[in-house]
C-alpha cells in the first residue's frame, strides 16, 4: 500500500520507516529512471544532498505536518529539508510532527565515493565512446559508486569538454546532470569530476 501511494511520484519503492508509517522518496518526475534511483535505499555519497519527499500512510489520518531531524548531524545533516551527507557512518532521520512526536524514522547510511560512471537519462550505462551528429544533444548523468554499490544523492559535479568547439556542455537545471551538444565535427573528451573521483567519455561529432 505504501509503495502504491508513492508510485505516482517516483518509479520505484521508497525507503520505508522503521515504524512502517512514513516513507522517504526522491523528488523525481514520473518516469525519470535516473532520478528515481536516488532514493535513500542506497547509502548517500559524501558531499551530496538528497531532497526527500515524505509520504505517510497512517491509518485514519491524512499526512500531518512533518519535520526531519538527524540523530547524528556530523554524519548526515538536515538543511532546508534536504539530507546532506558529511562523513561515513549512519544516522537515524527522525520524522516528527509539529509537537515533536516521532511518527517514524529511517536509518540512512553515508559512504565515500570510490568511482564515478556515466549513464544516459534512461539509466543505460555509457560503456564506450559516443558518436553524435552535428546539432544532436545527449544528456548524461553521473552515477556514484562505493565499490559495487550505487550511492544516492545529488552532487555538485564539475564537467569539462576538452574541445568546446566540437562538444559543449550545457546545464539543464540539475546539479550533476548535463546536456552535451554536438556543435561541429571533431573529437572531445568529456570529463565529470565529483568529490575527487572522475569519469571520462570520448565523444566524436560527425557531419
Amino acid at each position: 500500500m505504501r509503495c502504491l501511494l508513492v508510485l505516482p511520484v517516483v518509479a520505484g519503492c521508497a525507503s520505508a520507516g522503521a515504524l512502517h508509517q512514513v516513507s522517504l522518496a526522491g523528488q523525481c518526475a514520473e518516469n525519470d529512471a535516473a532520478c528515481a534511483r536516488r532514493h535513500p535505499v542506497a547509502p548517500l555519497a559524501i558531499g551530496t544532498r538528497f531532497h526527500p519527499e515524505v509520504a505517510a500512510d497512517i491509518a485514519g489520518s491524512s499526512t500531518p505536518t512533518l519535520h526531519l531531524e538527524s540523530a547524528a548531524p556530523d554524519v548526515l545533516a538536515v538543511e532546508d529539508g534536504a539530507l546532506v551527507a558529511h562523513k561515513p557512518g549512519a544516522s537515524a532521520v527522525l520524522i516528527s510532527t509539529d509537537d515533536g512526536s516521532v511518527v517514524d524514522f529511517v536509518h540512512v547510511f553515508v559512504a565515500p565515493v570510490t568511482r564515478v560512471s556515466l549513464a544516459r537519462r534512461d539509466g543505460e550505462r555509457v560503456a564506450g565512446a559516443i558518436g553524435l551528429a552535428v546539432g544532436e544533444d545527449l544528456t548524461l548523468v553521473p552515477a556514484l559508486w562505493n565499490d559495487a554499490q550505487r550511492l544516492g544523492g545529488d552532487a555538485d559535479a564539475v564537467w569539462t569538454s576538452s574541445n568546446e568547439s566540437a562538444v559543449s556542455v550545457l546545464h539543464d537545471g540539475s546539479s550533476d546532470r548535463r546536456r552535451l551538444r554536438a556543435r561541429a565535427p571533431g573529437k572531445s573528451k568529456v570529463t565529470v569530476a565529483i568529490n575527487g573521483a572522475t569519469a571520462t567519455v570520448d565523444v566524436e561529432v560527425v557531419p
Partner: protein
Amino acid sequence: MRALVLLSLAACSPILMSESPAPPGRSARLDAVDGFWSIKSYRLELSQGVAIAVSCYRGGPCEKLAVTSDNPAVAEVKPASLGVLIPNGSMLAGNRATTAAFVVVGKQPGLARVHVRSKDGGRELAVTVVPPPAQGAPSTVAR
C-alpha cells in the same frame, strides 16, 4: 511482608518492548534485567546515531506516559506516535487503544538513565550508547 509488597509493586510495573529493529552493523537492543520474581529494570544498548522505538504496556497501553533522560547529550528521548491499536484492559471487554511509545536516540557514546513514568507505574532504563564500528574494522562474530 515488605518484600511481598515490593514484589507485587514490581509485578505491576509496565512492560517495555522494542518496536523497531537495529540497522545493519549497529546496535539497538532492549533487554530486561530479571529480578527473582519479575523484571527488575531494563537495559538498552544503542549505537551512536541510531534510534529505537519502545512501547510501554501494562494491561493496555501505558496511560499518561512521561519519559525523561538524565543525560540527553548521550541518550535523547522523544514521544512517539505509533498509530497501532492494541488490547486495552480485560480481554472480555475487547477494548483496544493506541500504543503508548517513545523513541530513544543515541547521541554520543556514554551512559544515561531513562526514567519512564506513567499512571500504571514506572520503569528505569539503563542506556549505554556505544560508538559506531570503525570503517573496515573486523567484527566479532563470537567470543
